[in-house]
């Protein structure tokens, strides 16, 4: 008898996505889907899609969904959760969506301690609109609106959202993870699972920032994009848990050195 050893999570639709080769949105969708399945939440989960490359997330998840306006997913999530506290609500957002136009909504959602989960995909660029500079674009990184590279004297330094949110006094779970190599991906899933669990228990607001590649708009082949993330983003965006509702100290990800892309080259 053949045995199924690997299948699509029930929380994902049986469809192919529109994401570019080498983009990690698909991986992150899958991790969220697995976590929703493992916690048995599919039938009471409502997702909020952002404006950005993942705008069509509502076609990829097999859960009820809202499509939000650009940056406002945390406000929409607030509305859903306050109306129906029994639902499990997650917002899925890009870095332009969350850290630029939606800065106010994410900070206040976190500060009110809304019992929702935010999956924050940081690919250091505006993917959907064609590679413009994001608040998270790295110093010197070329984007279509900073053709000479991000000049920090004019555009400021990239915003570290996990750190910023973790300064709030309100209890929360705040972590940063990455999915550029399998070991990191395993950790990212563990972070997402904790984030959803806190919501299930009604404990606190939770957010997992996940570093992501954008080969198309970075102008790199997928393998090189992975290496670029490891070389440029990891040092600036440290991985780990930044805040827990119990207030324990920050725990850096117990993974050192280069174990991802450099080996894939």
């Amino acid at each position, binding site marked *: 008898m053949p045995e199924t050893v690997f299948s699509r999570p029930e929380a994902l639709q049986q469809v192919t996505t529109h994401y570019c080769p080498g983009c990690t949105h698909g991986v992150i969708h899958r991790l969220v889907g697995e976590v929703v399945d493992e916690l048995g939440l599919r*039938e009471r989960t*409502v997702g909020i899609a952002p404006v950005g490359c993942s705008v069509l997330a509502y076609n990829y998840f097999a859960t009820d*969904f809202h499509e939000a306006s650009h940056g406002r997913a945390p406000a929409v999530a*607030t*509305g*859903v959760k306050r*109306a129906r506290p029994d639902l499990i609500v997650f917002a899925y957002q890009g870095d332009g969506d969350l850290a630029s136009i939606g800065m*106010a909504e994410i900070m206040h959602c976190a500060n009110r301690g809304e019992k929702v989960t935010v999956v924050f995909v940081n690919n250091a660029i505006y993917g959907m609109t064609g590679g413009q500079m994001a608040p998270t674009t790295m110093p010197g990184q070329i984007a279509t609106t900073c053709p000479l590279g991000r000049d920090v004297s004019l555009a400021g330094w990239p915003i570290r959202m996990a750190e910023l949110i973790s300064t709030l006094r309100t209890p929360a779970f705040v972590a940063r993870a990455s999915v550029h190599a399998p070991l990191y991906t395993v950790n990212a899933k563990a972070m997402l699972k904790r984030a959803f669990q806190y919501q299930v228990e009604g404990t606190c607001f939770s957010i997992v920032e996940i570093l992501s590649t954008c080969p198309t708009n970075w102008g790199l082949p997928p393998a090189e994009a992975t290496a670029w993330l490891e070389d440029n983003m990891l040092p600036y965006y440290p991985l780990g848990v930044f805040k827990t509702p119990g207030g324990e100290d920050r725990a850096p990800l117990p993974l050192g050195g280069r174990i991802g892309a450099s080996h894939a080259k």
Partner: protein
Amino acid sequence: MAKKLMKGSEAIGEAAVRANCKLFFGYPITPQNEIPEYMSHRLPQVGGTFVQAESEVAASNMIYGAAGTGERVFTSSSSPGISLMAEGISYLAGSELPVVLVNIMRAGPGLGGILPSQADYFQATKGGGHGDYRLLVLAPWSVQEAADLVQDAFDLADFYRNPVMILGDGLIGQMMEPVEFKENRVPCKPLKPKDWAATGCKGDRPTNIINSLFLDPQVLEYHNQKLKAKYDTMSRDEVRFTEYGTGDDYDLLIVAYGTVARVCSTAIEDLREDGIKAAMVRPISLFPFPYEAVRRAAKKAKAVLVVELSCGQMIEDVQLALEGSRPVHFYGRQGGMLASPEEVAQKAKEVLAGTSQEVRHA
């Protein structure tokens, strides 16, 4: 229930509670602060939730999320705040979500002033946000009517799956009048179960998606046409207005809405004492506008006078209604200044004496 003396803002809030609305999201702005303040203490009494949003932008998106679950929800604001909600309102209309929005208008543009105005008529009835959409817009002239219209607004919003706006001014919000809430009120529209709501996808039902994105232009065109058909149905079925003195003969027809119409009704009485015959059509629904009623009532009159607390916005709908069949005159006050019955009567006399200049488009 016996009549109770209530401030307009409180009556609006209480009406929402009576309409079984348990959710309010909003941001403070004068002159409507008494509405969120009332909701913040009243909603917890009925097991509801009040959230002070970080901005009107957020508030408009919170009501979007809440309405998507099928629960009744409302927000209130005043002019600059409604401008900030414009994108959210467009999404609400595009996603066909039922919400009730209250705009207690203040004078603009910009930060303007905090006193009563009717200068958001265009914004409320012609768009405000982007894209082809309409709000159902209702304008009360008394505290009782505000309370009644708010309750109807929830039924209308649910029936049409469309945002409904209550357009008032600072006077409606601030004045105190007797109000009666009827027990066992019957909804003004039949209400269907909200099987479209995003409440968790049980079993193998297809997912419910609250959405206004249609990347395929043909599909979006169908969506636009479906919305248009809905607005056409509203235009056919939801026109509301009252007439004042149209049963008698008259030479002048006044068209005014909201609290200004009350001023005009006093002016009409004063004019009658002076032997001048005037009547009034008062639109209650601003979208849909009572074109036919204005057209019909104008037939008996020599001229039409539009009175507004703006530089003239509803007058364009009156002109559309009349199709040039009667001269149209305008009297307006702006900036938060009010029109007095004497001023309106004076203008009416000038119109009939031929010393007022008709409003014409070059």
